[in-house]
């Protein structure tokens, strides 16, 4: 029951490492790959702080075994933007005060990113339903919803002018 050879594409880069099948994807990302953006909140599939994108799906990476991520394509918050090139979602979270302590934010933004890929023009209700797997203990969600709606508008604008 040793380690297996794991190959994944993480934020566009091919990575290879040795991991035990039972290791959780969140721990592989944080501890083996040093990508500490996705957080561990509840570690029990409830809070969504560990949300990352895997093969086009938002997943709670505390509930995925490393072995299941073999050959997966993964995007974490680090893959969405950088401090000097913020993603529209990151910019709008900043502008609309969509975070306070910031603990839920990487999961929230990664989830919102997938939501906007699937529905580029969501209603407020669709945003609320779409982020219902992500808990925030600070903001009361109002500003998070505003930020996601503003990011959707901005992303659509950017698409049109491109």
């Amino acid at each position, binding site marked *: 029951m040793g380690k297996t050879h794991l190959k994944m594409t993480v934020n566009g880069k091919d990575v290879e490492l040795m991991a035990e099948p039972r290791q959780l994807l969140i721990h592989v990302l944080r501890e083996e790959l040093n990508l500490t953006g996705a957080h561990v909140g509840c570690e029990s599939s409830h809070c969504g702080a560990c949300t990352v994108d895997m093969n086009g799906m938002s*997943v709670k990476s505390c509930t995925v075994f490393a072995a*299941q991520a073999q050959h997966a394509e993964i995007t974490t918050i680090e893959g969405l933007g950088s401090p000097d090139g913020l993603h529209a979602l990151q910019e709008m979270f900043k502008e609309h005060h969509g975070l306070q302590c910031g603990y839920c934010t990487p999961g929230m933004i990664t989830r919102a990113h997938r939501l906007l890929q699937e529905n580029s023009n969501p209603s407020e209700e669709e945003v609320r339903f779409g982020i219902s797997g992500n808990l925030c203990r600070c903001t009361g969600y109002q500003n998070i919803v505003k930020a996601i709606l503003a990011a959707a508008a901005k992303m659509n604008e950017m698409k049109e002018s491109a």
Partner: protein
Amino acid sequence: MIASAFEYHKPDTVDGVISLLSKWGDDARVVAGGHSLIPVMKQRMTDISHLIDLGGISELKGVSIDGDTITIGAMTTQHELATDEALAEAAPLIREASLQIADPQVRYMGTIGGNVANGDPANDMPGLMQTLDATYHLTGPAGKREVKARDFYEAAYFTAREDEEILTAISFAKPSGGFAYEKQKRKIGDYATAAAGVMITIVGGTCTAASVALTNLSDTPVYCGAAVDALVGSSLDDTTIKVAVAAAVDASDPVADTRGPVDFKKYVAGVIVKKAITSALARA
């Protein structure tokens, strides 16, 4: 919370799974989406030395609608069920129920096969499968067999499936008439305090066919034959609906837990069944 160590297998055929299950017996378990199993493994409430991933078997995936029969592969996810337009057209009840399961992240991973095979009375799909009178397709060392959903559940986590069998698909006749899946939960992402699936067909003002089933109100999903008997042949007047609701509540057998005491759950069951009958009626 880290699961005990296990060996991981990912065969690409059903036969490959069956031969691993036959070889390792009780020490092996299949994993589908993992969103019921992994939490339990992390809490070390179960001991599994061989984990067999069904994710590599393409024949277990997808929805097919063939005339009057709808077949759904066991590895079809709840997200896929909720977003499949042809399925929503043929059996809108499936989308209605799927969207009430857990949250978006869980629905991307959780499969219909895992949801019905698990035997957890809190899962929503088993109750829905009672409503639809679905058939489960199993494959094991002795070949294939079919079991009606209404005969599948024996007690919490005990089902008619043998350890060395897997569920490959579910099928059911294309539903007609009005339908509803109503669920009372404390918050999004929660299991039901009470939920009910109802189908009603009306011809010329008379109810000619009906189906009523309950989720999380007993140690198995409950098909409410007495409630159906009350509805069928009636004009679905208020008195009849009251009798049917009372019969459904009578068929429930909830236990007290964090979702409330028994009396409360029976009360909620009555409210939910009435709501489901009323909205199925409005759509019939």
